[in-house]
């Protein structure tokens, strides 16, 4: 649980132990002297104190030593930072990580989507990290990597996992109510297994419809997959329980009050309302909820929206 399971992580750990070791040594010297002097020079044992205003050679020696020690620590930390930030291998597997309140999604070069980060062992992986709403931070302690997800830009970080297994993946930058539930797993597997997984269900992914093609028909089963892979699950339950957004259970066809441009009105939840809630969610916000849903324009295709509508219809 303590040891790193990535190549750079092991290097970082050894620097951690060197730097911490120096710190423990310095701390021990300070506390030892403090206690030693306090017992040696009590008022009883030493009733006549000696004023010593300073000692230039001694002070300069301590100054010089301190500068040398901190420069050494700086240098130790610098090396791997350079590798992590500036020396991303060109052949690294590129995975897009997208953070949104409060779920991670990962997209592979062939378009495959996943909520867990599956990576091959002993191969460099480059994470291209984005956010759809507020700041998040991609953090896998076992790999010793962390990088903030900043809306509006792509930030990269890389690692080479060197041990198969399942590791915790956190959001490390506070992002609102369910920040502490924005968890996932990083699964490190053999290259064969990884390739099998990557190709396995790839054909199940619908290719984006060519321009001008008739709007794809919805499919409730596909909608159910999208519900979890696109992160709807973080805010909308399917069992009627209350989360940040309204539950999907039995919601289709009901009448709700919404706020449009600051005025309340009543609407019926139909295909059109769900579609507009996906594309421009803050236009009509259900009374009692915050306008915080990220717009899905450019993220969901028409066909995918139709699938979600079918899925929501099916939740009676």
């Amino acid at each position: 649980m303590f040891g790193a399971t990535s190549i750079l992580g092991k290097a970082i750990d050894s620097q951690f132990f060197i730097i911490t070791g120096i710190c423990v040594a310095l701390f021990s010297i300070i506390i030892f002297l403090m206690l030693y002097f306090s017992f040696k020079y009590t008022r009883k044992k030493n009733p006549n104190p000696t004023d010593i205003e300073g000692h230039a050679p001694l002070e300069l020696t301590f100054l010089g030593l301190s500068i040398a020690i901190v420069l050494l620590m700086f240098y130790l930390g610098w090396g791997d930072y350079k590798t992590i930030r500036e020396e991303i291998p060109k052949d690294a597997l590129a995975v897009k990580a997208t953070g949104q309140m409060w779920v991670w999604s990962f997209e592979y070069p062939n378009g495959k989507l996943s909520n867990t980060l599956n990576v091959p062992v002993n191969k460099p992986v480059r994470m291209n990290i984005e956010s759809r709403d507020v700041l998040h931070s991609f953090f896998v302690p076992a790999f010793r990597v962390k990088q903030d997800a900043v809306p509006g830009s792509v930030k990269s970080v890389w690692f080479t996992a060197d041990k198969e297994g399942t590791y915790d993946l956190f959001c490390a930058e506070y992002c609102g109510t369910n920040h502490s539930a924005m968890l996932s797993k990083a699964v490190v597997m053999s290259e064969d297994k990884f390739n099998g997984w990557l190709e396995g269900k790839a054909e199940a992914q619908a290719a984006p419809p060519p321009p001008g093609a008739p709007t794809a028909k919805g499919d409730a089963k596909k909608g159910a997959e999208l519900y979890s892979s696109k992160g709807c699950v973080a805010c909308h339950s399917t069992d009627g329980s209350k989360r940040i957004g309204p539950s999907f259970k039995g919601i289709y066809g009901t009448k709700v009050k919404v706020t449009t441009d600051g005025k309340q009105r009543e609407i019926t939840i139909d295909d059109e309302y769900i579609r507009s809630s996906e594309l421009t969610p803050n236009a009509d916000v259900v009374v009692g909820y915050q306008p915080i849903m990220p717009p899905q324009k450019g993220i969901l295709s028409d066909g995918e929206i139709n699938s979600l509508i079918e899925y929501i219809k099916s939740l009676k």
Partner: protein
Amino acid sequence: MSDYAAGAQGNYLQKEGRGGILSWIFSTDHKRIGILYLVAILSLFLVGVTLGFFMRLELITRGPTIMAANTYNSLFTLHGVIMLFLFIIPVTPSVFGNFLLPIMIGAKDVAFPRLNLLSWWFYMAGAFLAILTLLIANGPADTGWTFYAPYSIRTGTNVTLALSAVVVLGFSSILTGINFVTTVHRLRAPGMTWMRLPLFVWAVYATAWIQILATPILGVNLMLVVAERLLGIGIFDPAKGGDPILYQHLFWIYSHPAVYIMILPAMGAISEIVPVFARRTIFGYKAVAYSSIGIAAVGSLVWGHHMFVSGFSYTAGVYFSLFTFFVAIPSAIKVYNWVGSLYKGSLEAATPLLYAFAFIFLFSIGGLTGLILGALSLNIHLHDTYFVVAHFHYVKFGGAGFGFFAALHYWFPKMFGRMYNTKLANVALLLLFIGFNTLFFPLFVLGFQGMPRRYYDYLPQFTNGQLISIVGSWILVAGVILMVGNLIHALFKGKKAQANQWGGATLEWQVPSPPPKENFEEIPEVKYGPYHFKRD
């Protein structure tokens, strides 16, 4: 030096005019203003402790225990806002700076007494606004005390009001800073040269410059967030064309130097206490004095070390790491000199010195773990985990907080003319020390294991560390109650203190306890340095 009797003036606590509360809250006497701050700040400290206690308690089981996620998020935000902006930033300069700085340099008051009163009113207004966020619709801010954009722009909670509170508090801090800088420059008694200033004065002086120079940037930054929330101007939210990393820069340009606003005056108090109880001059007076200025200067150039994983440039990361290591040097010099000042001293194990030892112990841990965090590659792993939470509590509470407790026990007999029960004060220190370490040390381990901060819930592997830490919070709270209770009891029932309770050589110990209304019968002439102790 002559013995200053209270004489015809009477002391500052005695009834003035019609007396009553109005003779306090509209008093321009720096000592009364110091006491006003003490009462207000200590009350808010107890609120902050209570919030922290319940935050910890919530984590006693996994999943929801005594509150909902939203409540927890508001709680740690309010805990941060109160403990930083209302407690640890103002506490030592506003209480002891106000009460003692004029006396220590041989002045009758600060340079601008009415401005000083205005600062206290700004402080109270800020505190009122911060508490108000709790009471009105939408609930208290849930952003964390850092108010990071764009979340702070999008959340529906009372962020605008909370930001306004911090801006108003900023005015209090700036005005206090201006007052102290002017006072030290203009009102020193004859013979009180810069090299005879008590080291506490040096520290408060350096702090005052940071307050003046850095606080306006925070005010502007937070007002920009308010403008973005109310008017929709896109400054920080990328959805409107803004830059969230710009917010972090502007925030930390103030908020990192603010750490030195917290710690410098506490270091100043320790620099007074150590020589007095060692009965010898401080080792390396000039080094300690100039290191205060050094910390203030270099500390203003290191803010980017809060942003190593924010995605800002690689070059910026290297620069900020290097300067972070440099700022450790003046702090280290102070620690060496305190320890060096014990050498060949004649030590009296009095309560304030014991608190000062606790300070040195805890601050050293805080400072040295800061070096671990300042190393770039380690920071990537440790940033935003419990390791950081542990580190800054060791610096701010273990350092600045325990430094304040030390100062309180050192100057209490001077301020109120009464002595507390030293045995109980020592027991309280023991509880505080054990509680503090039990609470915060496990967080280093949890942080290294990867426990992120600001989490309402946690994975099973973190359970044991959380439980130890929670037990620590109980011990710590017991220590706080005993310490405060002992002092309040002493206020009414304590034995009379002597004018020079500890045998100090600085000017405040040459006047009666409590000090007379005008501090001195006549302005003294200073002939010696601050740690020139009489020898038998």
